[in-house]
């Protein structure tokens, strides 16, 4: 008998630590990762890409992320990168270099495929580094503060941040509840992993419906509790933890700015 299961890949989860990157302000890390991705899409050719890979590698070294752990989480991305590479190999450009049966491998294709695959891996790794070194709550906090100028334009930044924070809090509760309900239904004789696709699909309903009903009841309780405590929106609210720009952020900013500028400079001459 099998139950519905939640997969547990370590990647993308906070990796506790005390490094320079861990202790930097979430805002500077967010800005750095956004800039990194933007530059990644601007440059062409291998030299700038190599430079940027170096920066990211240095970041992982500083954050002391175990490489084996990282590799395990990156496997699906590596697979997609491999597919991208192989595809380019056969369907791109001129200058045939090798023949594999009926297929022709193009030199141009090797270069382009390698570039796209490497860019894809860097793209995902850059986001991963941010998450590995920053606690989720700091991330929502940092994002809300970065977006706070938008509040002047009546964009509901504080509400968005609150909803993100509440959603974040709901996730572990929902996962637990999901597990518990499917165990409870299994105890009542529901066999969630048997039969054809249609009956399997129908079998998820005895889990999903109670999950939703329970969760909405809990959500309304939360709303009531907040209203009873006179919650009145984000404007003018103070925070217990105050974010501050420190020397670590200065180091990060200088390093990232230098490497990205260099990458853009090199990429310019191609």
């Amino acid at each position: 008998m099998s139950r519905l299961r939640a997969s547990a890949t370590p990647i993308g989860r906070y990796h506790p630590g005390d490094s320079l990157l861990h202790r930097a302000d979430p805002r500077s890390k967010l800005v750095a990762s956004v800039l990194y991705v933007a530059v990644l899409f601007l440059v062409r050719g291998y030299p700038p890409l190599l430079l940027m890979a170096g920066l990211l590698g240095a970041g992982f070294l500083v954050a002391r992320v175990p490489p084996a752990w990282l590799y395990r989480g990156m496997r699906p991305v590596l697979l997609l990168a491999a597919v991208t590479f192989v595809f380019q190999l056969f369907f791109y450009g001129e200058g045939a270099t090798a023949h594999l049966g009926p297929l022709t491998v193009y030199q141009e294709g090797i270069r382009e495929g390698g570039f796209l695959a490497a860019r894809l891996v860097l793209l995902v790794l850059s986001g991963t580094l941010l998450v590995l070194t920053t606690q989720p709550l700091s991330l929502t906090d940092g994002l809300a503060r970065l977006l706070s100028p938008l509040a002047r334009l009546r964009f509901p930044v504080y509400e968005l941040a609150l909803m993100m924070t509440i959603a974040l809090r709901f996730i572990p509760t929902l996962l637990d509840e999901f597990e518990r309900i499917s165990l409870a239904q299994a105890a009542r004789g529901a066999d969630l992993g048997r039969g054809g696709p249609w009956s399997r699909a129908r079998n998820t309903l005895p889990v999903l419906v109670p999950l939703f009903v329970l969760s909405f009841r809990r959500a309304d309780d939360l709303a009531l509790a907040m209203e009873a405590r006179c919650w009145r929106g984000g404007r003018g609210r103070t925070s217990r933890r105050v974010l501050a720009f420190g020397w670590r952020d200065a180091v990060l900013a200088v390093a990232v700015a230098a490497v990205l500028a260099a990458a853009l400079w090199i990429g310019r001459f191609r």
Partner: protein
Amino acid sequence: MGRSTLQDMIAVSLFAAMTAVGAFVAVPLPFGPVPIALASLFALTSGAILGKWLGALSQVVYVTMGLAGIPVFAEFTSGVGVIAGPTGGYLVGYIAGAFLVGLLVEYLPFASATARAVPAFVAGTLLIYLLGVPWLMLETGMNLPAALVTGVLPFLPGDAIKIMIGTVLYLSLRRQLPRLVRSEGRALVQRQAEGK
């Protein structure tokens, strides 16, 4: 009983969290290596249950969480890299899909809720692909057939199942939580009000 803004906001958060949980949960299928991720199911259901605006908002919250770097996307990934990456179009599609499902469930001129929900979920699913596939092609340099083979075909059986689950979920929640479901057939209510 009406619902307060705060109740709405929390219901929106709940659907954002549900979509994230859906991205972590895989239902194994007897055929093919690709499990069904439930994220798109919850994305579309949010539109059906919360209505077009709040449904789309819940997906905006979901995508923004991922954008901020919280690992809520499939395989526990997150960040600008995923949105900008090859599968980013699908995530933007969640927002558009939730809106479309809410819109259709509300406005399709059929008397039975089932007859409104099924086409709504089908259209929402198609919209996700409509945004996801060109994005995938652009990022990986695949041509249309290749993008269809990697980005659409393996998921179609799962999608059929998800459309069915979504419809039944909507119908049963509609019965059990009538207070919550706000996207009732507007055309129908108007017709009844006019006494036809």
